[in-house]
């Protein structure tokens, strides 16, 4: 029970750490059999301020800030190992099928743009990682960007494997943060 309260407090703290512009966006939650997902659209200003403080130049981080960026939180409240791959996540609905741009692709871009080491370290570990395995009780947060901005609201399907069985969680009516 205490661990659960701690998670709730940590989530509130994480949200409070984001600038007001990011908090105004609508988060979406999904749960299934003890697996919980939360997605929060991130405002461009929030993304910029975070990465500028980590050593990026405004010019270097611009393509990431201009993308549709979301913060994800995934909790494994089951008693089984949970696996997921960001490459499997897709939008649906009127937006069509859009995948996520993986962190490795962004890191290639930072190499091309000559982004310095400390900024790249912060970037790497602030992302939702491409492949994750969660033990029971684990939870993790991270940012991710869609490969292109959808027009309007979209549905996001998140497949995962729980104890070798495939499942998915769908988040409806997600939207990218409005440009600011």
């Amino acid at each position, binding site marked *: 029970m205490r661990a659960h309260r701690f998670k709730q407090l940590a989530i509130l703290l994480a949200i409070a750490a984001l600038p007001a512009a990011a908090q105004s966006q609508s988060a979406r939650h999904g749960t299934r059999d003890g697996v919980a997902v939360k997605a929060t659209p991130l405002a461009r200003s929030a993304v910029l301020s975070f990465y500028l403080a*980590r050593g990026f130049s405004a010019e270097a981080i611009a393509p990431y800030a201009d993308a549709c960026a979301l913060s994800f939180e995934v909790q494994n409240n089951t008693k089984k190992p949970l696996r997921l791959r960001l490459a499997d996540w897709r939008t649906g609905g009127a937006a069509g099928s859009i995948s996520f741009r993986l962190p490795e692709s962004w890191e290639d871009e930072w190499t091309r743009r000559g982004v310095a080491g400390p900024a790249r370290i912060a970037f790497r570990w602030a992302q939702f990682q491409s492949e994750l395995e969660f033990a029971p*009780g684990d*939870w*993790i947060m991270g940012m991710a960007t869609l490969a292109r901005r959808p027009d309007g609201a979209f549905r996001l399907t998140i497949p995962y494997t729980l104890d070798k069985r495939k499942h998915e969680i769908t988040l409806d009516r997600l939207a990218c943060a409005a440009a600011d």
Partner: protein
Amino acid sequence: MTAVPGTPGAPPLALPDIDGKTLDLSTLRGRLVLVNFWATWCPPCRREFPSLSRLQRLFKPAELAVLAVNVGEDAETIFSFAGASDVTILLDRDSAAMRRWPVKGLPSTFVVDRKGRLALRAVGGREFDDAAIVAQLRGLLRL
């Protein structure tokens, strides 16, 4: 925290502390060592950080050492957040040490047993002085 299958040997870890003095994990053999990878910009890391000091105070130094390995930040940034702490803060400026550990995200925490093996792990924030975690550590001390 979750048991690490097969209890493999802990990867090497030798890093400077906030005063520039190098600490090598291998010199702590015979004690439990809790290794926490963190950064000041990571909200769950900030939230759990005080519980690392509280955990350290529940054990004798000869029983448990808590190492908080900061990833990618400078001493000034770390000190402005952590101040005077009961845990040993190590600086992994280029994240080279962390890359040798099975870290999947921040915060990630491992417990190295008295024989130098990875015994427990946790991904995501915890309250480390929680009774269940303290009991797990006391159990490892009895092995």
